[in-house]
């Protein structure tokens, strides 16, 4: 409690308050722990289940630990269902999308933050205007466009529409605007080109901003579902969520061991990335929330 610094002797009413908050704190830990269990259990269940046989998964009441742990589900997943391929596709698309966002959004963020050119206000307004427009609204014409370009069921078709985004521009502009003008002025006096200023002064100072954008973009791409579902039409180009969703609604609808192993393959890598970078995640989300 924040009031602990005050002397309780002069405020008799506070003694009872502190006692009460002391006991309510104990109660809070119990509630928070129950909540923690409720949040984590599905993941624990998923991982444990992915090592069980189909017979054990269907038993009632369910077992906790796998009785005879088996790797069969994973073997089937990677040998027969070629999840290795989908995993590689997911990585490829996410890396390309992240690289594009980092480069292009920081470039335009720099232009919007530190340069003067005609139509700057217009560009910024347009970009911010699309921030609220959901992917659900644009996927039909986007598909027609990509189909006309002959890019349906191809890697460019999966990547190009996400190479830049309004969120990245906003984030990088906010970050670069906070960098001191003096650095740029000094470089400009020395005759450095804007491209050189961007490469040698701005980019090296953008580390934290780029890290936040990179992590959030990678996450968004890894979990993206609707667009890859629409544009990847053969197994060759499926990403993990598409493969898993089509598996879970297709002929494998009741092959729970396989599905739980598939879900584990989708979830565990990104959770590990999150746990390593968790501070950046919360910072990124909190920054965009407050602004």
């Amino acid at each position, binding site marked *: 409690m924040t009031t602990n610094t005050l002397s309780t002797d002069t405020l008799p009413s506070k003694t009872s308050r502190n006692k009460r908050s002391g006991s309510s704190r104990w109660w809070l830990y119990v509630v928070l722990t129950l909540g923690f269990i409720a949040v984590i259990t599905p993941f624990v269940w998923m991982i444990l289940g992915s090592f069980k046989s189909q017979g054990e998964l269907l038993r009632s*009441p369910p077992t906790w630990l796998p009785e005879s742990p088996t790797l069969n589900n994973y073997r089937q997943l990677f040998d027969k269902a070629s999840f290795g391929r989908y995993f590689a596709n997911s990585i490829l698309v996410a890396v390309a999308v992240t690289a594009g966002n980092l480069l292009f959004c920081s470039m335009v963020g720099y232009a919007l933050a530190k340069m003067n050119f005609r139509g700057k206000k217009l560009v910024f307004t347009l970009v911010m205007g699309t921030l609220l427009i959901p992917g659900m609204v644009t996927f039909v014409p986007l598909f027609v466009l990509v189909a006309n370009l002959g890019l349906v069921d191809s890697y460019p078709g999966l990547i190009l529409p996400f190479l830049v985004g309004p969120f990245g521009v906003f984030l990088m502009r906010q970050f670069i605007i906070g960098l001191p003008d003096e650095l740029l002025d000094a470089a400009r006096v020395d005759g450095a080109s804007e491209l050189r200023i961007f490469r040698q002064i701005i980019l090296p100072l953008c580390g934290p901003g780029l890290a936040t954008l990179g992590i959030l973009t990678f996450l968004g791409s890894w979990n993206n579902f609707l667009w890859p579902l*629409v544009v990847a039409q053969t197994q060759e180009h499926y990403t993990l969520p598409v493969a898993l969703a089509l598996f879970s609604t297709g002929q494998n609808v009741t092959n729970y061991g396989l599905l739980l192993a598939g879900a584990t393959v989708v979830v565990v890598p990104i*959770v590990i990335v999150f746990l390593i970078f968790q501070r950046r995640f919360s910072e990124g*989300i909190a920054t965009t929330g407050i602004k």
Partner: protein
Amino acid sequence: MLALPFLLLFTVFTAWPVISSLYMSFTDIKSRDLRSPFNVSFVGFENYARVFADETFRKSALNTAYFVVVAVPLTLGIALAAALALDKGITRFRTLFRVGYFTPVVTSIVAVAVVWRFLLQPDSGLVNTVLGWVGINGPDWLGSTTWSMPSLIVMASWRNFGTAMIIFLAGLQSVPVMLHEAAAIDGASSWQQFRHITVPLLRPTLLFVSITTGVGYLQFFEEPFVMTQGGPLDSTISISMFTYHQFGFGNYGFAAATSYVLFVIIVALTAVQFRLFRSNT
């Protein structure tokens, strides 16, 4: 110029689809017209008239409303309670709880939907097993028209409350401690402090979070796609699923019209929320 590559990509893949989506919604474009764009003709408001006359669309609009109206307050309620507890209530294990509660947010909805479908199984599912311990005979959650939507709502809130919690935590940290100290000296109870200090100062954050959560939930798609395919008896079909189905049938103009209806609903809801939060101050 530095902005050029961005502007090119942005115009082609973001700005153009927004505009052409509106145009397409007034035409009868179908999948077979992709190769012969001159067959497409302008049909005025016909698509929109058909959208509102469509029985399944009305059902999906009602379902979407049900989902949003229940899931947004539930998500924000859990998030605010968790944020308050982590901010002032406890002193130890804060990071552990914060990171744990946020974890579902980073996971794929498709993957968690697959897992939850399994947890919600009537016989061998974990949820009904736990309910059995306290003597409750759980229903066939996803197979019942009554329980299918509540199941999706609980799962969505479970997955998403972490985002709102993080934003609330950041907002709570901007509330000056002095205010609470002053109020405590004046004898204000915890509830009074919450009601008259925390809530008013948190209002901008609440507005932001309720809008972003609402906009996200209005488009819910993966949950019914994986868990129920919109069933049973269309009890969980959402507007997004309806659009996706029409797209799958090749009715591009009609699908574009449904997605624009959703867009207008999103804009309207955002405006209403702005009003609500303003007028309460």
